[in-house]
Protein backbone atom coordinates (compact mmCIF):
# COMPACT_ATOMS: atom_id res chain seq x y z
CA UNK A 1 0.00 0.00 0.00
CA UNK A 2 2.79 2.37 0.96
CA UNK A 3 4.65 1.42 -2.17
CA UNK A 4 1.61 2.10 -4.27
CA UNK A 5 1.34 5.61 -2.94
CA UNK A 6 5.04 6.12 -3.38
CA UNK A 7 4.77 5.10 -7.01
CA UNK A 8 1.83 7.40 -7.55
CA UNK A 9 3.72 10.20 -5.88
CA UNK A 10 6.75 9.67 -8.07
CA UNK A 11 4.57 9.67 -11.18
CA UNK A 12 2.86 12.85 -10.13
CA UNK A 13 6.16 14.58 -9.34
CA UNK A 14 7.51 13.60 -12.76
CA UNK A 15 4.44 15.04 -14.44
CA UNK A 16 4.75 18.18 -12.37
CA UNK A 17 8.37 18.60 -13.39
CA UNK A 18 7.47 18.16 -17.05
CA UNK A 19 4.79 20.84 -16.80
CA UNK A 20 7.21 23.10 -15.00
CA UNK A 21 9.71 22.69 -17.81
CA UNK A 22 7.08 23.60 -20.40
CA UNK A 23 6.09 26.55 -18.28
CA UNK A 24 9.61 27.92 -18.16
CA UNK A 25 10.01 27.37 -21.88
CA UNK A 26 6.81 29.29 -22.58
CA UNK A 27 7.97 32.05 -20.27
CA UNK A 28 11.27 32.39 -22.10
CA UNK A 29 9.42 32.44 -25.41
CA UNK A 30 7.14 35.14 -24.12
CA UNK A 31 10.09 37.24 -23.09
CA UNK A 32 11.66 36.87 -26.51
CA UNK A 33 8.44 37.89 -28.24
CA UNK A 34 8.10 40.85 -25.93
CA UNK A 35 11.58 41.97 -26.92
CA UNK A 36 10.80 41.56 -30.60
CA UNK A 37 7.63 43.54 -30.24
CA UNK A 38 9.53 46.33 -28.52
CA UNK A 39 12.15 46.39 -31.25
CA UNK A 40 9.51 46.49 -33.97
CA UNK A 41 7.64 49.26 -32.17
CA UNK A 42 10.83 51.31 -32.07
CA UNK A 43 11.42 50.70 -35.79
CA UNK A 44 7.83 51.68 -36.60
CA UNK A 45 8.20 54.90 -34.63
CA UNK A 46 11.39 55.70 -36.49
CA UNK A 47 9.81 54.97 -39.87
CA UNK A 48 6.82 57.12 -39.02
CA UNK A 49 9.17 60.01 -38.29
CA UNK A 50 10.70 59.85 -41.76
CA UNK A 51 9.81 62.14 -44.61
CA UNK A 52 8.17 60.56 -47.66
CA UNK A 53 11.30 60.80 -49.81
CA UNK A 54 13.57 59.20 -47.20
CA UNK A 55 15.66 56.23 -48.24
CA UNK A 56 14.97 52.96 -46.47
CA UNK A 57 17.05 49.83 -46.77
CA UNK A 58 16.52 46.31 -45.58
CA UNK A 59 19.40 44.04 -44.67
CA UNK A 60 19.00 40.83 -46.63
CA UNK A 61 21.90 38.53 -46.01
CA UNK A 62 25.02 40.62 -46.48
CA UNK A 63 23.48 43.33 -48.66
CA UNK A 64 21.31 46.34 -48.09
CA UNK A 65 18.34 46.38 -50.44
CA UNK A 66 16.48 49.57 -51.04
CA UNK A 67 12.87 49.49 -49.91
CA UNK A 68 9.80 51.56 -50.42
CA UNK A 69 8.98 53.47 -47.22
CA UNK A 70 5.28 52.62 -47.35
CA UNK A 71 6.04 48.99 -47.98
CA UNK A 72 8.49 48.92 -45.09
CA UNK A 73 5.90 50.47 -42.78
CA UNK A 74 3.34 47.91 -43.84
CA UNK A 75 5.77 45.07 -43.33
CA UNK A 76 6.67 46.21 -39.85
CA UNK A 77 3.00 46.62 -38.95
CA UNK A 78 2.27 43.14 -40.22
CA UNK A 79 5.11 41.73 -38.19
CA UNK A 80 3.82 43.51 -35.11
CA UNK A 81 0.36 42.06 -35.62
CA UNK A 82 1.86 38.61 -36.01
CA UNK A 83 3.96 39.00 -32.86
CA UNK A 84 0.92 40.23 -30.94
CA UNK A 85 -1.10 37.20 -31.97
CA UNK A 86 1.82 34.97 -30.99
CA UNK A 87 1.99 36.73 -27.64
CA UNK A 88 -1.69 36.09 -27.08
CA UNK A 89 -1.23 32.42 -27.94
CA UNK A 90 1.69 32.10 -25.53
CA UNK A 91 -0.20 33.95 -22.80
CA UNK A 92 -3.10 31.53 -23.12
CA UNK A 93 -0.65 28.68 -23.00
CA UNK A 94 0.98 30.09 -19.87
CA UNK A 95 -2.34 30.43 -18.04
CA UNK A 96 -3.19 26.87 -19.05
CA UNK A 97 0.13 25.58 -17.79
CA UNK A 98 -0.32 27.59 -14.62
CA UNK A 99 -3.58 25.78 -13.91
CA UNK A 100 -2.03 22.43 -14.72
CA UNK A 101 0.84 23.17 -12.37
CA UNK A 102 -1.54 24.01 -9.56
CA UNK A 103 -3.51 20.82 -10.13
CA UNK A 104 -0.37 18.71 -10.00
CA UNK A 105 0.85 20.50 -6.91
CA UNK A 106 -2.43 19.79 -5.19
CA UNK A 107 -2.31 16.14 -6.18
CA UNK A 108 1.22 15.86 -4.83
CA UNK A 109 0.18 17.46 -1.56
CA UNK A 110 -2.69 15.03 -1.17
CA UNK A 111 -0.49 12.05 -1.86
CA UNK A 112 2.10 13.32 0.59
CA UNK A 113 -0.54 13.63 3.28
CA UNK A 114 -1.73 10.11 2.59
CA UNK A 115 1.84 8.92 2.74
CA UNK A 116 2.43 10.61 6.09
CA UNK A 117 -0.79 9.17 7.45
CA UNK A 118 0.35 5.70 6.47
CA UNK A 119 3.70 6.23 8.11
CA UNK A 120 2.05 7.39 11.31
CA UNK A 121 -0.24 4.36 11.39
CA UNK A 122 2.72 2.14 10.89
CA UNK A 123 4.63 3.72 13.75
Amino acid at each position, binding site marked *: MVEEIQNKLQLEVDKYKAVQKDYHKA*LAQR*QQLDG*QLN*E*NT*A*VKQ*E*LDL*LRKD*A*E*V*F*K*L*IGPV*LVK*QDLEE*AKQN*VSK*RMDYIRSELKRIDDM*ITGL*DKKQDAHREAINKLQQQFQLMQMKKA
Partner: protein
Amino acid sequence: MATKEESVFPQVGQQIELSNLSLQQLTQLKQQLDQEIHVFLETSRTLKMAQTKFQDSNDCLEKITPDSEGKNIMVPLTGSMYVPGRVANGKSVIIDIGTGYFIQKDIDGAKDYFKRKVSFVGEQIEKIMQVSVEKSKLNKVVAQKIQLQLQAQLSSQQQSQQQEATKS
Protein backbone atom coordinates in the same frame (compact mmCIF):
# COMPACT_ATOMS: atom_id res chain seq x y z
CA MET B 1 10.56 40.34 -17.25
CA ALA B 2 7.10 40.10 -15.79
CA THR B 3 7.06 36.63 -14.30
CA LYS B 4 3.89 35.49 -12.66
CA GLU B 5 5.38 34.19 -9.45
CA GLU B 6 3.48 34.12 -6.21
CA SER B 7 3.20 37.79 -5.53
CA VAL B 8 6.26 39.04 -3.71
CA PHE B 9 5.36 42.63 -4.42
CA PRO B 10 3.87 43.89 -1.18
CA GLN B 11 3.36 47.28 -2.79
CA VAL B 12 1.17 45.80 -5.51
CA GLY B 13 -2.29 44.79 -4.37
CA GLN B 14 -2.14 42.36 -1.49
CA GLN B 15 -0.11 43.45 1.48
CA ILE B 16 1.99 40.87 3.22
CA GLU B 17 2.73 41.46 6.85
CA LEU B 18 6.38 40.57 7.16
CA SER B 19 6.21 39.84 10.88
CA ASN B 20 3.63 37.13 10.19
CA LEU B 21 6.03 35.13 8.07
CA SER B 22 7.98 32.22 9.41
CA LEU B 23 11.75 32.10 9.32
CA GLN B 24 11.66 29.72 6.38
CA GLN B 25 9.32 31.94 4.41
CA LEU B 26 11.47 34.97 5.18
CA THR B 27 14.59 33.21 3.95
CA GLN B 28 12.79 32.20 0.80
CA LEU B 29 11.62 35.77 0.26
CA LYS B 30 15.14 37.06 0.81
CA GLN B 31 16.55 34.61 -1.71
CA GLN B 32 14.03 35.69 -4.27
CA LEU B 33 14.74 39.35 -3.61
CA ASP B 34 18.49 38.77 -3.92
CA GLN B 35 17.89 37.09 -7.26
CA GLU B 36 15.69 39.91 -8.50
CA ILE B 37 18.16 42.58 -7.46
CA HIS B 38 20.87 40.67 -9.28
CA VAL B 39 18.77 40.61 -12.46
CA PHE B 40 18.14 44.35 -12.17
CA LEU B 41 21.83 45.10 -11.81
CA GLU B 42 22.64 42.89 -14.77
CA THR B 43 19.97 44.58 -16.89
CA SER B 44 21.06 48.07 -16.03
CA ARG B 45 24.63 47.12 -16.90
CA THR B 46 23.50 45.89 -20.33
CA LEU B 47 21.47 49.04 -20.84
CA LYS B 48 24.45 51.19 -19.94
CA MET B 49 26.51 49.36 -22.53
CA ALA B 50 23.84 50.04 -25.15
CA GLN B 51 23.74 53.68 -24.12
CA THR B 52 27.51 53.97 -24.54
CA LYS B 53 27.23 52.48 -28.01
CA PHE B 54 24.67 55.07 -29.07
CA GLN B 55 26.77 57.80 -27.50
CA ASP B 56 29.85 56.57 -29.40
CA SER B 57 27.93 56.66 -32.67
CA ASN B 58 26.82 60.16 -31.86
CA ASP B 59 30.40 61.21 -31.15
CA CYS B 60 31.52 59.70 -34.43
CA LEU B 61 29.07 61.90 -36.29
CA GLU B 62 30.95 64.95 -35.05
CA LYS B 63 33.80 63.87 -37.29
CA ILE B 64 31.68 63.74 -40.41
CA THR B 65 30.97 67.09 -42.02
CA PRO B 66 30.22 67.99 -45.62
CA ASP B 67 33.93 69.00 -45.78
CA SER B 68 34.99 65.42 -45.23
CA GLU B 69 33.69 64.44 -48.65
CA GLY B 70 36.54 63.03 -50.71
CA LYS B 71 38.82 62.64 -47.72
CA ASN B 72 40.83 59.45 -47.39
CA ILE B 73 39.89 57.00 -44.69
CA MET B 74 40.88 53.47 -43.77
CA VAL B 75 37.97 51.12 -43.98
CA PRO B 76 38.07 48.06 -41.72
CA LEU B 77 37.28 44.87 -43.62
CA THR B 78 37.91 42.79 -40.55
CA GLY B 79 39.06 43.80 -37.12
CA SER B 80 42.67 43.51 -38.24
CA MET B 81 42.63 44.38 -41.94
CA TYR B 82 42.02 47.76 -43.50
CA VAL B 83 41.75 49.08 -47.04
CA PRO B 84 42.06 52.73 -48.06
CA GLY B 85 38.85 54.42 -49.11
CA ARG B 86 37.36 57.79 -49.71
CA VAL B 87 34.29 59.36 -48.14
CA ALA B 88 31.77 59.53 -50.96
CA ASN B 89 29.05 61.33 -49.08
CA GLY B 90 29.66 63.67 -46.17
CA LYS B 91 26.09 64.82 -45.85
CA SER B 92 24.25 61.73 -44.79
CA VAL B 93 24.74 58.41 -43.07
CA ILE B 94 22.80 55.16 -42.97
CA ILE B 95 21.75 53.97 -39.55
CA ASP B 96 20.53 50.65 -38.28
CA ILE B 97 17.15 51.11 -36.61
CA GLY B 98 16.63 47.43 -35.79
CA THR B 99 15.01 44.32 -37.26
CA GLY B 100 17.22 44.62 -40.33
CA TYR B 101 15.96 48.04 -41.37
CA PHE B 102 18.40 50.82 -42.20
CA ILE B 103 17.49 54.40 -42.97
CA GLN B 104 19.40 57.22 -44.57
CA LYS B 105 19.49 60.39 -42.54
CA ASP B 106 21.40 63.64 -42.83
CA ILE B 107 24.01 64.32 -40.16
CA ASP B 108 21.73 66.41 -37.97
CA GLY B 109 18.91 63.91 -38.27
CA ALA B 110 21.26 61.10 -37.30
CA LYS B 111 22.57 63.05 -34.31
CA ASP B 112 19.00 63.66 -33.26
CA TYR B 113 18.27 59.95 -33.59
CA PHE B 114 21.19 58.94 -31.40
CA LYS B 115 20.41 61.61 -28.83
CA ARG B 116 16.85 60.34 -28.61
CA LYS B 117 18.09 56.78 -28.22
CA VAL B 118 20.56 57.77 -25.50
CA SER B 119 17.87 59.53 -23.50
CA PHE B 120 15.40 56.68 -24.08
CA VAL B 121 17.85 54.13 -22.74
CA GLY B 122 18.66 56.54 -19.90
CA GLU B 123 14.99 56.64 -18.94
CA GLN B 124 14.84 52.86 -18.88
CA ILE B 125 17.93 52.70 -16.66
CA GLU B 126 16.32 55.25 -14.37
CA LYS B 127 13.15 53.15 -14.11
CA ILE B 128 15.08 50.00 -13.32
CA MET B 129 17.19 51.78 -10.74
CA GLN B 130 14.07 53.00 -8.96
CA VAL B 131 12.61 49.50 -8.72
CA SER B 132 15.99 48.18 -7.72
CA VAL B 133 16.27 50.67 -4.85
CA GLU B 134 12.79 49.69 -3.65
CA LYS B 135 13.75 46.04 -3.70
CA SER B 136 16.99 46.72 -1.85
CA LYS B 137 15.06 48.49 0.89
CA LEU B 138 12.65 45.58 1.18
CA ASN B 139 15.60 43.22 1.18
CA LYS B 140 17.17 45.05 4.11
CA VAL B 141 13.95 44.92 6.09
CA VAL B 142 13.62 41.21 5.44
CA ALA B 143 17.22 40.64 6.49
CA GLN B 144 16.54 42.49 9.74
CA LYS B 145 13.46 40.38 10.43
CA ILE B 146 15.47 37.23 9.84
CA GLN B 147 18.12 38.47 12.25
CA LEU B 148 15.51 39.26 14.89
CA GLN B 149 13.87 35.88 14.60
CA LEU B 150 17.19 34.12 14.80
CA GLN B 151 18.12 36.06 17.93
CA ALA B 152 14.78 35.29 19.52
CA GLN B 153 15.24 31.61 18.81
CA LEU B 154 18.74 31.66 20.18
CA SER B 155 17.81 33.39 23.42
CA SER B 156 14.85 31.10 24.04
CA GLN B 157 17.18 28.15 23.52
CA GLN B 158 19.68 29.55 25.99
CA GLN B 159 16.94 30.16 28.49
CA SER B 160 15.72 26.63 28.35
CA GLN B 161 19.28 25.42 28.68
CA GLN B 162 19.78 27.55 31.76
CA GLN B 163 16.57 26.24 33.22
CA GLU B 164 17.78 22.70 32.68
CA ALA B 165 21.06 23.59 34.33
CA THR B 166 19.41 25.06 37.42
CA LYS B 167 17.11 22.04 37.74
CA SER B 168 19.98 19.61 37.93
